[in-house]
């Protein structure tokens, strides 16, 4: 979407990115309770993230390759402890840290139409900083250790009607994956939704995770303008130990997101988003 770096991927000057979420599911921090998470916030994050909210836990899916796609894909876990996901939000609502006993994530969102996405290196650095804060807190307090088991990077795009398309039946004007209907025998769709998954493989063609793409029709609460919410989530296991392994997958996943976004969206929308030559 807006990659500037050695990967040689396309850059957009005005991408439709609304939010970026970088997260990791972890294990081995058995002693980490909600109270401890609050203590960590107080010690390390409160001044920058003063607002606190409580949410139900997040259960990140695990990308499996050891059973066929039509085989069983569930997992069961019994818990006798209720889990709470705590949100720590900046005053301006730009940034968020989410923590629960087995999951951690950093969000950045575009608050106003004039604000600009601050690019992947900044998102990566924020994740690294706050993850390290949590990791050290858990170890210093003897609560176990933070061992990443699944990594996730998500780009949320709000593609609002106006330039390039007008109504929710025009998803093919945005996405090449959604083909237009020929002939006059049926009416045009009123709205559409789309989902697709892509395997993320490494340089040896070994599957490392999946990239999931969804496009959902929606409307802005403020003003009711129609839009498509296009989410791209790259999810997979860490490619090595600890933070370094998590970052290795996150870098791979983010690059795959940018390439896939460019490949599946239409050239006319690329012009709208200011594609660099």
């Amino acid at each position, binding site marked *: 979407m807006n990659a500037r770096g050695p990967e040689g991927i396309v850059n957009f000057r005005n991408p439709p990115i609304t939010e970026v979420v970088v997260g990791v599911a972890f294990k081995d921090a058995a002693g980490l309770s909600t109270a401890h998470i609050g203590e960590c916030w107080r010690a390390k994050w409160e001044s920058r993230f003063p607002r606190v909210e409580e949410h139900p*836990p997040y259960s990140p*899916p695990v990308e*499996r390759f050891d059973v066929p796609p039509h085989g069983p894909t569930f*997992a069961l*876990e019994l*818990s006798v402890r*209720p889990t709470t996901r705590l949100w720590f939000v900046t005053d301006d609502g730009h940034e968020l840290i989410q923590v629960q006993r087995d999951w951690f994530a950093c969000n950045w969102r575009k608050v106003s139409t004039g604000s600009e996405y601050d690019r992947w290196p900044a998102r990566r650095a924020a994740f690294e900083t706050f993850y390290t804060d949590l990791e050290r807190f858990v170890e210093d307090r003897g609560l176990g250790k933070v061992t990443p088991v699944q990594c996730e990077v998500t780009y949320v795009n709000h593609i609002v009607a106006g330039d390039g398309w007008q109504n929710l039946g025009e998803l093919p004007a945005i996405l090449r994956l959604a083909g237009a209907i020929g002939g006059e025998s049926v009416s045009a769709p009123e709205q559409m939704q789309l989902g697709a998954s892509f395997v993320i493989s490494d340089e040896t063609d070994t599957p490392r995770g999946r990239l999931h793409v969804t496009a959902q029709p929606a409307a802005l609460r403020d003003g009711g303008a129609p839009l498509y919410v296009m*989410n791209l989530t790259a999810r997979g296991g860490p490619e090595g130990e600890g933070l370094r392994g998590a970052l290795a997958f996150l870098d791979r996943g983010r690059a795959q997101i940018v390439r896939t976004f460019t490949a599946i969206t239409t050239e006319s929308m690329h012009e709208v988003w200011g594609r660099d030559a």
Partner: protein
Amino acid sequence: MPKLLPASGHSNLQSERERFATGHAWTIGRDETLSGRQIIVFGPMLDTGATVAWTPESWLQGALQDLQALAALRPGWDSYGASAIDADTATLASEVLRVLADGNAPRPALVPTSDGGIQIEWFGAGLEFQLELEPRTEHITLFFRDLDTGAFWEGPLGEEPEPFPKLLWRVTSHG
């Protein structure tokens, strides 16, 4: 009673209900984003939780009816003084069945135990696989046996040597 969590895989419990999902594409949900509050998403798939295989055609409805019949068993149902099925255990069994159905598991058999518990079982081509839900305990026991070789494994769910879906796939793919 312990609570069943969809630790992974495709379940629609808790915040999974709000996940953006189309078919088997699973991106993060509105619940996990700040920008989710800015929008109203259209489409019944998101608001009903009907993003998974809870269709009338799936085996879940039939299995839940079987479970209901087991829950109605009276004390002494086996003529040897068996307990009635524990209500909490039946509730937990229903949650397990939902997660299994969501995750493309084949339909299991349900067997009552004399102490008021429930076994969820699969058999196929010399392989046996059981989840035993015992009353008043905080774990599910998993049992796996190869009837040809006699090899078996038994222990708390979560400590199995290989991922549960992979074990189950091995059983059912032989059938």
